[in-house]
């Protein structure tokens, strides 16, 4: 398993995408921006490039010839995806908290980069994983439709929650509030986000393995 993760990082994922969390994370310093986009860049840029590279370099065939189980092939890939996602979230979170200190008097139209917002980001990535990973592992090389469906799902989630956050006064208080009990609630939402992310990604893994076991390696 560790060998497979090492293989993906050394051969499959271009080094640019390993520092991408820092590059997109820096966008957190744009005051009052739609910060969901910072995380969505992972789905829009990193995933298609990474999977295109894997396909053009015949990774599936290459990996299948190594002494590894099909289960581990899927597990390792999901570790790489989830690892990169978490790197994006962690960097964005740190930069986001700095950004809030930099602009203390800013009135946020879109979600401010607080802990609660990052809970929503994790839920968004969980949705992305749940759609993308099982769809991709039907063939383990075609990713176009899987990417389209999963990005649409994640973007819709972002759009709808943002709209609710603006339009609904209760939700607005929870996600925009700066007083102590709002902050505590936001921390709780982040924890819930982490749990949802891990549980849903694990579910995506289980479905993906079942499908991948049926795949004929081309």
């Amino acid at each position, binding site marked *: 398993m560790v060998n497979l993760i090492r293989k993906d990082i050394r051969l499959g994922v271009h080094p640019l995408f390993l520092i991408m969390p820092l590059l997109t994370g820096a966008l957190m310093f744009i005051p009052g921006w739609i910060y969901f986009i910072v995380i969505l860049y992972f789905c829009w840029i990193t995933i298609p490039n990474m999977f295109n590279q894997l396909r053009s370099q015949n990774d599936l065939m290459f990996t*299948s010839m190594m*002494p590894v189980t099909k289960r581990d092939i899927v597990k390792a890939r999901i570790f790489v995806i989830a690892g990169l996602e978490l790197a994006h979230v962690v960097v964005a979170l740190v930069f986001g908290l700095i950004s809030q200190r930099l602009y203390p008097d800013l009135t946020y139209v879109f979600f401010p980069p607080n802990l609660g917002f990052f809970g929503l980001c994790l839920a968004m990535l969980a949705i992305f994983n749940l759609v993308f990973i099982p769809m991709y592992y039907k063939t383990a090389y075609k990713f176009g439709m899987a990417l389209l469906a999963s990005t649409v799902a994640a973007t819709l989630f972002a759009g709808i929650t943002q709209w609710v956050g603006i339009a609904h006064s209760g939700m607005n208080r929870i996600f925009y509030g700066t007083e102590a009990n709002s902050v505590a609630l936001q921390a709780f939402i982040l924890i819930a986000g982490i749990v949802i992310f891990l549980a849903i990604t694990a579910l995506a893994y289980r479905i993906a393995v079942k499908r991948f076991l049926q795949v004929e390696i081309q």
Partner: protein
Amino acid sequence: MQALDIRNVNKKFPSFELKDVSFQLEKGYIMGFIGVNGAGKTTTIKSILNMTHIDSGEIHILGKSMAEHELELKQEIGFAFGSIDFYTRSKIKTLTDTIKKFYQNWDDQIYSNYMRRFKLDENKKIADLSTGMKVKYSLALALSHGAKLLILDEPTSGLDPASRDDLLDLFQELIAEGEVSILFSTHITSDLEKCADFITFIANGQIVLSGEKEEFKEAYLLVNGSKSQLEQVKDQMISYKTNSFGFTGLIQANDFDPSSGIKAATPSLEDILIYYTKKGENIHG
């Protein structure tokens, strides 16, 4: 011991079918796996490597069932796919460093010996290697992890005659000690004339014949004669070509009557391959 034992493998695809594929390769020998493009060579190889789900049948490698001991056996199998490249933009060094971690018996000393012998520069990218060099690199990898069975899919296709000859000499050298066995598929039959001990011939997803090379050739006769003679043997022929002088065709040796006066000779592997492929159709040349 059998290095490779394939019994009654069946696999149905929408447009193609492997039917009851069986053959055995004795340890320490080279088996040529021949057939025209699309005959089922690569599908069979993928079935051996468990990359395709077979519908029925059994595959044993080095005495163990592939279905039950896949991981353990993959440690002992080396492979080279002549027509498929992996990670061509990476340097040899990077690729080797990644691959070697997967193998318990990896030996750096053996690896550097082969790299020197094959004149492979570790700092080159895979894309910069010639076809022959790529096959040699795959062999260096396989031998460095102590592979006992080498499965090579068309390793000589696309090579110039000198590189082919060089590679075939290498195959013979590898099996000399009796530990390594080689199954290699090809449609270049002259390669097999030079180095194979056994031949397995596949056509339309079915094994036509599998056996020792000379016996294999002796099982058939290449016959030629006049048009009137053709009428005598027409029904027994596997296939034949006619021309203004008469006909040439392939027949099974035990269907041939030596007293018929028709000229007969031992066919080359290429003759067998060509006439078998034309089975069922008459060729007018």
